[in-house]
């Protein structure tokens, strides 16, 4: 089986968990005899291509405004606030002017006029999550149509990850007629507080899922949101839990500086991650046991607010901030931790507790996270229930037997979460989608 996959990022250059998940998934699929062609907006050339063929969308010349072939023209039209030619520089240099002038004298054609009503153009994607994200999303669809045309007959199914690639998936489906599977790693409702969602993103997500033959959700939590809030028929939505891949390299255990127990929160300090509940729980624990230190690793728009709250609660000598951590420092932080906590208000899956468990750290996770569905050896609390959270922290800090059990069993449990198994489920989804299409 061959799959044309559209992603936004791929290791080593990643901004979040999406790239990591795509990498693990493609490895798993390769082991399940599925060939993957992975298209991304901007490849750097140092991607690991042992298990997957990477196509760089920035290298593809795409035809614009050719309504017969493109397959993505209505998408371009729908996103009317995007100026297609914004790639053009507003000012031209004297040399360029001379060239244009010369060609004008020769052909009588002004330089902005093009042959016919279609032209080909290469667009260099940033592949980031910047200001012109919407434009990149739309252009990606046009390029996707071109890729699907060039690879005609070389794939059986299309798989698109997250809303950024949904237009690309739709365009590829139109050109090729092959079934489309879209993968919801997160929903708009996870990215915002309450129901104040970005409606542009919501619309794209819904359009993608409506056009898809199958939708994969990373957890039942996400599946329910898809069914309830996006109105997608339940029988088309399948849950496939993420797995986790660990690098085999052994990290050396850093020397501990403090004898106190360390309770760690690691992640973006944003509303979605519930950092303030952690602070309240920390204050409750510190009232009972003084020899505990709390660490908040990461940065985010709520960081200053959290620092102020910590200062006001008078626990700043026991509550530390590390700022944004990367690479080895993240591993170091896990190694130094005695308890890991993820009090997310809404977490479609949540890979970080698995990384903590891998480092033998007992974890406390919120019931509002997808990862809670696959873990037994994790304490699960409601994100708002700071008393329960404080209780669990107290238990792990005070009763070594409890911590020992959770870390030992937890390591076993997390080692069992393999991408091979998840990929096998994804392969089943592909087959269902293909069967539906053939009917």
């Amino acid at each position, binding site marked *: 089986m061959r799959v044309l996959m559209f992603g936004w990022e791929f290791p080593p250059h990643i901004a979040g968990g999406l790239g990591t998940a795509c990498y693990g998934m493609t490895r798993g699929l390769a082991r399940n005899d599925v060939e993957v062609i992975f298209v991304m907006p901007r490849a750097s050339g140092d991607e690991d291509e042992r298990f997957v063929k990477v196509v760089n969308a920035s290298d593809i010349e795409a035809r614009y405004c050719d309504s017969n072939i493109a397959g993505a023209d209505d998408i371009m039209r729908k996103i009317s606030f995007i100026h297609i030619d914004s790639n053009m520089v507003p000012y031209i240099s004297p040399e360029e002017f001379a060239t244009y002038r010369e060609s004008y004298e020769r052909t009588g054609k002004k330089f902005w006029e093009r042959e016919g009503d279609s032209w080909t153009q290469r667009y260099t994607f940033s592949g980031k999550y910047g200001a012109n994200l919407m434009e990149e999303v739309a252009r990606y669809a046009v390029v996707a149509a071109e890729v699907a045309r060039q690879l005609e007959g070389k794939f059986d199914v299309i798989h698109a990850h997250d809303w950024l690639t949904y237009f690309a998936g739709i365009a590829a489906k139109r050109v090729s007629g092959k079934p489309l599977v879209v993968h919801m790693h997160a929903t708009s409702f996870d990215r915002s507080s309450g129901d104040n969602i970005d409606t542009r993103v919501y619309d794209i997500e819904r359009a993608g899922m409506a056009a898809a033959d199958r939708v994969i959700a990373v957890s039942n939590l996400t599946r329910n949101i898809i069914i309830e809030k996006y109105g997608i028929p339940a029988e088309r939505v399948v849950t496939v839990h993420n797995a986790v891949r660990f690098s085999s390299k052994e990290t050396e255990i850093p020397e501990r*500086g403090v004898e106190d127990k360390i309770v760690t929160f690691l992640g973006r300090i944003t509303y979605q991650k519930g950092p303030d509940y952690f602070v309240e729980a920390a204050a409750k624990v510190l009232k009972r046991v003084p020899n505990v230190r709390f660490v908040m690793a990461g940065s985010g728009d709520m960081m200053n607010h959290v620092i102020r709250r910590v200062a006001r609660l008078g626990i700043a*000598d026991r509550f530390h901030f590390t700022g944004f951590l990367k690479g080895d420092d993240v591993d*170091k932080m896990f190694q130094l931790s005695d308890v890991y906590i993820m009090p997310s208000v809404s977490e479609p899956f949540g890979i970080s507790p698995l990384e903590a468990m891998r480092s033998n750290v007992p974890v406390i996770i919120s019931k509002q996270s997808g990862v809670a569905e696959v873990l037994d050896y994790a304490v699960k609390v409601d994100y708002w229930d700071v008393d329960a959270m404080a209780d669990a922290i107290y238990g792990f800090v005070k009763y070594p037997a409890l911590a020992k059990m959770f870390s030992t069993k937890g390591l076993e449990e997390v080692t069992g979460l393999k991408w091979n198994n998840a990929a096998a489920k994804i392969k089943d989804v592909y087959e269902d989608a293909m069967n539906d299409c053939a009917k």
Partner: protein
Amino acid sequence: MKTVNLYFQVHQPWRLKVYRFFNIGKDHNYLDDFTNRAIMQKVARQCYLPMNALLLKLIKENKGAFKCSFSITGSAVEQFRAYCPEVLDSFRALAETGCVEFLAETYSHSLASLSSKEDFVEQVKLHTKMIKDEFGKKPVAFRNTELIYSDQIGEMVSALGFKTILAEGAKHIMGWKSPNYIYTNAIDNRLKVLLRNYKLSDDIGFRFSNQGWDQYPLTAEKYAQWVAEDAGEVVNIFMDYETFGEHQKADTGIFDFMKALPKAILSHDLKFATVSETAKVSQPVGVLHCPHAMSWADEERDVTAWLGNELQNEAFAKLYGLKDKVKALKNADFEYVWNFMQTSDHFYYMATKWLSDGDVHSYFNPYGSSYEAFINYMNVLADFEIEVEKALAAKKSRKKEIA
């Protein structure tokens, strides 16, 4: 004849290095040695050395008619000793002329006066001893960190045996009264209060090089004229010593201004005096009531630049919470850290009031934000606390062994 009282404040904080969570428990060197040395040597080159040389020359030229006063913090003296002892020598040369008075203050340029009497007395005694050792004379006049003053602080200072204290001529305290007279403390009438004439002080300190100022350029003659015209008995001109060559660079002409100033002042019916002499030139005209702490900082002239938000209050509370433990250790190494952790600059970096005086705040701030400053300070404090606890435990077990 009106008296001109020139007073300069000399201070450099010990700056902390970037101290991460991962350092806690392992790394006990808290200072940024490179930055401390670089800044101290730069300021010495641009300000302390040339300005001290100029003042010495002016004193000699005017044969005792030109006088001024200084206060130098303990942390500045420690850094002179470490990085540029020649500055200390030049201050000693000034002390030997007899025309320069050295004032007492808190050793660490600390906020101890806002913490407790005990902390304050300790800081002042430490500084008084240091000044006596370095310059041979026990100070009799006092100036508190950043001119922080209240009735209670004045009472503590008087109880310590000082006769005179400096304070800000803040509008909200003075009302219709003029800073150009001598006042007394409201609780202890023996203590004389000299008030800063902030208009004339800031003309040099802040406005001197401001080309948008309608009085630019400021000449010594024009300035002397203003001083002569300002009604009253004394004119107290107080400022940071770093004004000369550092805040106002040499190319603004600040040294030339200073060179011409004594002659210009003395050509009017004016004379120079040190702080203690100024306090004796005439009788106090009244009592100054100041129930709440004021200072010379910012538009508000209060203490919110150091203790104005929850970050600063928390750091302050946690720092002074360690006091008894540090005292119990009686160990010079711990006291050294204890002293530089008290320096008010650390709290100044945590200020979040950027509206009225943001420029001044950011000029002195090595941190990207108040939050960074807070995190760094608390990390250092956490390690210091662990070390203190360890040392205390070791001390206790030693005592047991002996017993």
